[in-house]
């Protein structure tokens, strides 16, 4: 039900919907071409040198999965919760809080999945997919988006006003810039390397970079486990909080 509603709405605002796909592509063209010419090749996940475009493309894919999921699950959900009173209306029907949480996350996933698919085709067009493992990048992107959407929703349920969204930016932007999206872990001093390795986006980038370049190894299960924990915690907290907020 909730899915159908979201799909209906975005058919009206299709320009905004479609434009979300262009942003990572702009980044890929500009950064891949321009910055690439400044640095040349970089060591890939398995040590073999890869072009700079091949280096940042999976990073951008991971980052766009994160951005899309977080924006959908914070700004969007907050507006519906506080202003549109949409969920209150839904609870008057047989829908329960968990249905709402999963419905919103589900829609964020469909959207994120479409963006990821678009971006992967662009990567393929530029010849940046060098391994059949890249097919798994799409489901991986969905897992990443699921995790960020779940945690984002849980966070939104604690927000009081739009001022609190500065905190969202404060969490997202540094992650986007420092999670080895644009340059490898080795440029950091050791202490900072550990910090970076704790960030969720770092694990997403690792996962994507491994898959698109074909450097697949067992350690990637660890990256996946990180997201599994995020998902479980996020959904649990989000549905409990929605319960408290809506069924007063």
């Amino acid at each position, binding site marked *: 039900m909730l899915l159908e509603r979201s799909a209906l709405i975005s058919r009206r605002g299709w320009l905004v919907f479609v*434009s979300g796909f262009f942003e990572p592509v702009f*980044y890929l*063209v*500009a950064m891949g071409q321009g910055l690439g010419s*400044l640095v040349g090749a*970089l060591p890939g996940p398995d040590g073999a040198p890869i072009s700079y475009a091949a280096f940042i493309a999976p990073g951008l894919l991971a980052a766009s999965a994160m951005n899309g999921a977080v924006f959908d699950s914070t700004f969007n959900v907050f507006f519906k919760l506080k202003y549109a009173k949409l969920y209150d209306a839904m609870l008057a029907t047989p829908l329960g809080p968990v249905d709402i949480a999963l419905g919103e996350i589900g829609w964020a996933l469909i959207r994120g999945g479409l963006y990821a698919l678009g971006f992967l085709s662009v990567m393929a067009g530029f010849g940046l997919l060098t391994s059949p493992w890249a097919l798994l990048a799409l489901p991986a992107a969905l897992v990443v988006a699921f995790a960020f959407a779940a945690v984002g929703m849980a966070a939104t349920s604690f927000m009081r006003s739009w001022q609190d969204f*500065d905190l969202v930016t404060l969490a997202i*932007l540094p992650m986007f810039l420092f999670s080895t999206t644009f340059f490898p872990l080795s*440029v950091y001093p050791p202490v900072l390397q550990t910090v970076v390795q704790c960030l969720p986006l770092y694990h997403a980038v690792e996962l994507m970079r491994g898959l698109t370049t074909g450097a697949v190894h067992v350690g990637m299960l660890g990256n996946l486990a990180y997201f599994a924990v995020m998902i479980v915690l996020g959904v649990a907290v989000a549905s409990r909080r929605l319960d408290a907020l809506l069924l007063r």
Partner: protein
Amino acid sequence: MAAIPTATRSAGRAPTPVGGVLLVVEHFWTWYRRNWRATAVSSILQPLLFLLAFGVGFGSLVGDSGATGGAPYLVWLAPALLAVSAVQSAAFESTYPVLSGFKWQRVYHAMAAGPITPGQVALGQLGWTTAKITGSGAVYIGVIAVFGGVARPTIVLSLLAAALTGAAVAALVTAFAATVESEGAAFNSLFRFVVVPMTLFSGTFFPVDRLPEWIRPVAWISPLWHGTELARDAALGIWRPLAVLGHVAVLAALLAVGTALSVRFFRRRLAL
């Protein structure tokens, strides 16, 4: 029944044209003086993070490729980031806040109900935005200096370049915002298809000649490219009189067009 005075003169005097504009600026300043902390994240922290990620982090990957004219990457990048942050905050300050002045808070209507003319409201809004981005720019230069991104004192001229670029963008975007009736797609598309590509393709992070041939004309029409060139030449102490003249002329022309359109659209929308 008491006589109703026929002459409805108020005791005060109507402000002079400049005085009216300054009153509008003062309105925004009064608000800002109490609420500036909320803007610290977007105006200072955001450019600082970009400086760290690209100037310091990415910069460590960039060797002396000649692309930066021999300057360290951080020193080369810093004045461009100054211009970018001026343009981004100019664009943002001129979208939702302007629409809000017309639609939600209706402060423009309130101002224009008194002796202040719609034109003065428009100029006051632009004056305030420019003053604000210049102030943030000055703070940002201090931050850059702390991280070793300032090579010579001429970076003060970069601030002028950034302010001029920001003003030009603010004027154009304000004119656009004054024609927008509802939020939603219009501003989103502006950011997605104008502001973000402008940031990426205007020679901020790498020289424009590193782009494929067909995409370079995008830079020439971008106000940010002109601003970046000016700011960078100033910061690195390069003096090319003819180029400076050209860039300043383009930016001044955009500023003039944007201002004229803003005044016009404000008049149309506030004349009830």
